[in-house]
């Protein structure tokens, strides 16, 4: 049915990785320039969806054997546990902190616990969006 399968698949392979890289960049850059967990997650989703559109469901399930519902749960778990982490230091729930560290290769960099929380957001948003789209898309075989 898909006439342009080859072209679509070839471009999708390239483009989706560009989008994925961009998504992850935007996610990590989010603390200082526009971006963050929400946007990063959504951009990642669009990359994944592009792949799912280009290739069929079975192939994709083999390539990315991830249950996105579990990804949602993992994201929520991370978000909540970063909040709980603050309790260990006798701080109110969800208190974040940051510091500057000298990392090998990268040099001095700022590391903030808020980014950990944002990872949770990122994973949840990606998981949710992909779950919704895949669920609706999968339904077509029951038409």
């Amino acid at each position, binding site marked *: 049915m898909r006439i342009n399968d080859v072209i679509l698949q070839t471009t999708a392979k390239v483009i989706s990785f560009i989008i994925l890289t961009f998504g992850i960049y935007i996610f990590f850059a989010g603390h200082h*320039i526009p971006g963050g967990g929400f946007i990063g997650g959504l951009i990642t*989703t*669009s990359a994944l969806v592009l792949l799912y559109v280009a290739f069929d469901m079975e192939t994709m399930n083999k390539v990315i054997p991830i249950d996105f519902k579990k990804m*949602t749960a993992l994201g929520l778990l991370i978000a909540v546990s970063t909040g709980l982490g603050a309790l260990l230091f006798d701080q109110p729930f969800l208190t974040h902190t940051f510091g500057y560290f000298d990392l090998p290769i990268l040099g001095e960099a700022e590391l903030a616990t*808020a980014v950990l*929380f944002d990872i949770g957001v990122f994973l949840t948003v990606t998981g949710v969006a992909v*779950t919704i789209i895949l*669920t609706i898309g999968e339904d077509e075989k029951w038409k």
Partner: protein
Amino acid sequence: MSLLHVVILAPFLAAIIVPFLYKLARPVHTGWFVLILPILLFVYLIQYLPEVSGGQTIIKEQPWIPSLGINFTVYVDGLGLLFALLITGIGALVVLYSIYYLSKKTEALHNFYVYLLLFMGAMLGVVLSDNLIVLYTFWELTSLSSFFLIAYWYHREKSLYGALKSMLITVFGGFAMLAGVVLLFAMGGTFSIRELIGQADMLASHTLFIPAMLLILLGAFTKSAQFPFHIWLPDAMEAPTPVSAYLHSATMVKAGIYLVARLSPVFAGQAEWFWLVSGFGILTLFWGSFNAVKQTDLKAILAFSTVSQLGMIMSLLGLGSASVHFGYATEAQAYTVATLAAIFHLINHATFKGSLFMVVGIVDHETGTRDIRRLGGLMTVMPITFTIAIIGSLSMAGLPPFNGFLSKEMFFTAVLNARELGLFNMQTWGALFPFVAWIGSVFTFVYSMILLFKPFTGQYKPEQLDKTPHEAPLGMLISPVILVSLVIIFGFFPNLLSYTILEPAMASILPGLLEPGQQFLVHIAFWHGWTTELFMTIGVIVLGSLLYLSLKKWQGIYDLFPHRLSFNHLYDQGLISMERLSARVTNAHMTGSIRDYLIYILAFFIIVLGSAIFLLEGYAFQFEDSGAIAAHEVILAVVMVIAAIAVAVTESRLTAIIAAGVVGYAVALFFVIFRAPDLALTQLVIETVSVALFLLCFYHLPKLKLKPKKTGFKVTNFIISLGVGTIITLIALSAHSTRLFAPISEYFVEASYDEAGGKNMVNVILVDFRGYDTMFEILVLGIASLGVYALIKLRLNRRENYENQ
């Protein structure tokens, strides 16, 4: 929290434990565990007696909602202690009696005792609370537990009817009382009864005083089954007999009496109070006793008798309220005797009526019926029960040497004295009081005799009974025997009560009459010489006996009263028509169409917000500081508006979706223009994903048309939409024009780098400052995705199941 608080809360705690005891110890009757509690409480409370007799009061405060002036304050004085002792004392006897009355094999005992304990705690709360709101809360709890207890045998239709009736009437009164309490608060600024009493003079001159009085009396009258609200009490007799003895004779129905007595210091001395309380009381006395005579069910006789006796106590409290005009001088004593008689009769009534209820319970239990037409000649079968019945009903009839005689004599004294009262137009109407009281007493005598002789004497008719009657088990007799012993003891030694409890209780009702440190001196005697009261009693006996003997000849007068005019009929019809009305109103606006509901909501939105903007003058717009408009912005806005309208008017599904997408992308561009890069990015991606989603889904729904049939242009919808749009525009303009507070965004500008180490303020707010919001937001998202997943996948499973079958 003091021990007194624990006293009130203990029954509630016990109510939690009882079901577990019932489950764990099935062979033992649950009542035995429950019995411990009222005994303990009674013993504990009686320790306060010496202190209270000495004129002391005990106050323990426990803040509950101090900001609203609501504190759980326990206040023990003569009146409260008297009631608390009645509640725990009678409670213990009733629980003991119920152990033999209710079979542990067939009855749901855990339910029964939970309700009973709930009631006990609530009732203790009513009589020991100083705060009116706390009192009200417990008051409604008593109504609730009474409802459960009447409906205890819930498979019987009459039980449910009686339960509902009592609930509706008492809760209606309770609401009225709450309104009265709120009015008292509005006047006095406090919910504390003690503090309200302190400013009684100020309250009396207030315009809200009379409404508050009427509302509170409504609460008291409904609870104490005063005419015309008495109709619930006979139907409440569907409850198990221990419950009737406890709630509907000894304690709960006296809550209204308690309230009137408790608030007497606030209201006494007012003509309205005097007339309402004594007038309705004496009317109830007559009506109750008159109707008791025609009943054929033993419990119905007792129910109407209770109504009548409650009326008597109520009228005595009303008459006693006149004494505040005199101070504690000789003339006042003529009226304080009414208050004294009220308290004394309260105790006496609990003893003799309690024992009579238990006797009726025994008769019912052993013979299987309470119908006096089927009963007879039980004297020889149940000698002990008969003896108890003699003492109880003679006391109720007001015959010496029992306690009923003493309080009945005092009642006559009080009504006779009332004629002399030079207040409230009593010169003209005062003569009615002794007359009605005397007639009522005659009927009281008649029904007492019916109660005594019909079941126990006459012909023994075993063939009409379901069971072979025999004397009740010993355990069932303990409680009534204790009560009738009290009838005799209080009859011979009334002054046992005078010094200990009657005097302090009077002091609580009539505090204004006493100098500090002074006490009422009460001495009750049997023999006063050949007084009018004695002749009245003799008259009662003579006429009562005549009426009893000629009962058959004049009973026809009861049929003269048409059923159509009775209050029961009125209640039933009122209930039916109210149900019909509410069904009609509900059906008229609950159409089941979501569109109608939305129209209600939106119309409300337009009207309320529109008038708020108009009334608060929120339309003072100012436009000086608005930003400049560039040409491309105008074009963008126009595009967006056109796209939006296109969504509404197009009939093509695809066009609508694409137009909606255009709106979304235009919003993203606006975000760019308005310096919101994060939003623009998010909106772009979301819009792309959503449009893809829409198309994906519509692809699968070929038959789904945007307009299933040509509906045309809806004027109503259009007007409402226009209204909503206008209001929103006005709100936006008004919010822009009026800044009540400085924006809090400065804080984020300053703090986001120093405190959170981030330069993107929006992101810092999301993950750090308002991380809580974000956390719950992603939770909501997760739930939404699970919802989507479940909606589609669950069906898949079901289809698979179908296919497998």
